């Protein structure tokens, strides 16, 4: 009898504990949702809805301007853009640009970050100087660079003083994309450096001390210790940098308008010009959907890379 009473009693205790736990969980979810709501709403309104709207609108053909009614056309817009040799050239150019600019920016950021965590004089000053370009609005820095790179601008004056030939930079189809790369990297290197420095600082110093005892050289330490231990930050920078460079727009719009000879027409600029320049929203939406698919593939690749490494580490 006593045993039964005890069991019942503990059963009641257990169930009320579970209820309390459930209620606590419920309250926790409620507050979590409340705090997340503004972000979720912003995500839905600013990102998910336009995305769906763009995908939807890419299946219609409409007279430019966006006022006259659109007609459902299935995949016609995709057929149109994918059979356009100019668009294919733009996609190839965008790929090539990203294949060059991302490794360049990340390796330079990493190099600068490694330098910045060494015991050097005026460390704060150097770091600030490298970071300053990030603080200047991109419109301002683009216009300044335009003045610097003018055919009769200060950069060419410097080249002439050094006995070199003046260059056309933004006015040459062979140099314009490199000039854009230079401007974007001048800003990007300082920005990504900050994330990598945070990563470098989080590596425990004992590991380096141990490596020193084992007489590992600096190059070996960098590749065997530093790089593996900042992989998370490095992968974040890699993904974010790729996304940023796929949608690099301001310097192109301001400085070259896609020229000369289409040499700086990247996908995002092409989509913008189609949508807002020509007023062909549906065709513009089609181009953005294609751009998004390419970017998602790139991002998914990065994420899968991160996952594989984690599994290996656990093994």
């Amino acid at each position, binding site marked *: 009898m006593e045993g039964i009473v005890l069991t019942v009693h503990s059963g009641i205790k257990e169930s009320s504990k579970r209820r309390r736990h459930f209620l606590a969980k419920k309250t926790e979810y409620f507050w979590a949702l409340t705090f997340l709501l503004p972000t979720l709403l912003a995500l839905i309104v600013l990102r998910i809805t*336009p995305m769906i*709207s763009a995908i939807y609108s890419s299946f219609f053909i409409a*007279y430019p301007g966006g*006022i006259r*009614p659109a007609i459902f056309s299935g995949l016609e817009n995709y057929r149109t853009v994918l059979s356009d040799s100019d668009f294919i050239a733009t996609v190839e150019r965008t790929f090539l640009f990203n294949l060059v600019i991302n490794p360049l920016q990340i390796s330079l950021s990493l190099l600068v970050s490694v330098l910045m965590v060494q015991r050097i004089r005026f460390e704060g000053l150097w770091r600030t100087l490298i970071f300053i370009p990030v603080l200047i609005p991109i419109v301002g820095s683009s216009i300044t660079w335009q003045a610097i790179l003018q055919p009769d601008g200060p950069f060419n004056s410097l080249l002439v003083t050094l006995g070199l030939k003046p260059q*056309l930079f933004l006015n040459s189809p062979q140099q314009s994309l490199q000039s854009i790369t230079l401007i974007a990297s001048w800003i990007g290197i300082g920005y990504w450096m900050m994330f990598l420095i945070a990563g470098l600082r989080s590596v425990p110093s004992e590991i380096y001390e141990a490596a020193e005892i084992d007489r590992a050289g600096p190059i070996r330490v960098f590749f065997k210790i530093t790089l593996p231990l900042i992989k998370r930050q490095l992968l974040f920078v890699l993904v974010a940098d790729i996304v940023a460079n796929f949608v690099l727009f301001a310097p192109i719009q301001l400085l070259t308008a896609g*020229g000369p000879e*289409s040499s700086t027409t990247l996908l995002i600029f092409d989509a913008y010009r189609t949508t807002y*320049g*020509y007023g062909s929203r549906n065709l513009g939406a089609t181009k953005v959907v294609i751009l998004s698919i390419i970017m998602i593939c790139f991002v998914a690749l990065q994420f899968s890379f991160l996952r594989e490494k984690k599994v290996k580490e656990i093994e």
Partner: protein
Amino acid sequence: MFKKSNRSSKSIWAGIASLSLLLGGVVSTSSYAASTLTIPATDPDTTIKVLSFMNKADIQTVLDAFAKEHPTIKVDFQTVPFNDLQPTVDARVSSKSADLDVYWADQPRVSALAARGTALDITSAFSKYRSTFDASPWASGLYNGKLYALPIANSTQMLFYNVDLLKKAGITPPSASISDRMTWEDLVVDAKKAVDSGAKYGLLFHQFDRYYQLEALPVSKGGGIGAQGKGNLIPNVANKGWIDALTWYGKLFKNKISPRGMTPEQVEPAFLAGQAAYMVGGPWFLPGLNLSKLNWGVAPHPYFKGGKAATANGSWSLAINPYSKNQEASAIFLKFMAIDGGSGYIKYRNDPELAATPEAKKLYFAKDVFATPQGKQAATIIDYETSKTGVGRVQTVGYIEFETIMNAAFSDIRNGADPGKVLREASNKLRKAWAIYK
């Protein structure tokens, strides 16, 4: 396994979320109706929103005069940068917003604006004023026989020169007489001489790489305005006249007579700073020249030897948003700006701007800027060119694409690309861009 796929789906959604900010296509499903606009006898009590690329300070005297004559109609004057005007109008009107009443419309774009449904049919209110305007500006507001915009100004181009730089190079200044119009071929020889004698630039175009100013070159060579056929939807930019004219243009930069990389905003200051021997520019430059200490002269716009004289023309018109809730008040504003007293816009502006009506032209030529000896010569040139040699920009519903593609082509030729190749490519691009209109 579950975790793996969950994570990969998460990453895809993260990707979607981070990218979709870029996307914004909205499909419209209803059409707009034609208007039966009238101008009311009494002014409504309202505020109209007017969108322009002009600084408010430059037009304040005009707005003040409007407020005096129409005190119950307030004007909320909004300014966007020149290049953003069309996208802003497109964005506001296509969302069927009544948040815009009147906007500045580039005259060659009126056909496109009308066909797209971005401009209100104003025929019923303004067709009776046809004889008030010069023929060319009036025609720029027509599409399929209906009126969609009212011109408030016109323009032309002429040749300015720096007297001191020419003297230094031993060059006889060009004549201001229409009958002694210079050829481009002779001008280039003199411009080169000026550069060789120390001028930084031989010849500047105020609007390098813009069809507005460069159209006169192929037209003078017999190449036409750039398009032909029904609705001007067949590109005609790769013919001999165009290639020859643009080859001449490309050589200016190759031979260092004109600079690469200089933007339109930098041209007038460079001429005022005494850096250029010659500059092709518009009459809006006259007040600046008069105020400067530069020793300058003026001559008619050159032409190609054996070709015909041709000059740019056209300017801005005003159009009404078809979704405006203040269409009658907007019509009153349009009438004030373009018609009343010859043209309120021309009459009350401090800076003189070439008028689109004969009556306002009298007001225009009476301004102080034409009182100097060079000003008088400029007035004769302006009067002649606007009535005899002005060539309108191509009127087509595909003008917006045309201008974008051609301006890029001019820029490429300036940067050294082969004119024939660039123009053939531009022709192909136009064909593709215009396919939607056929």
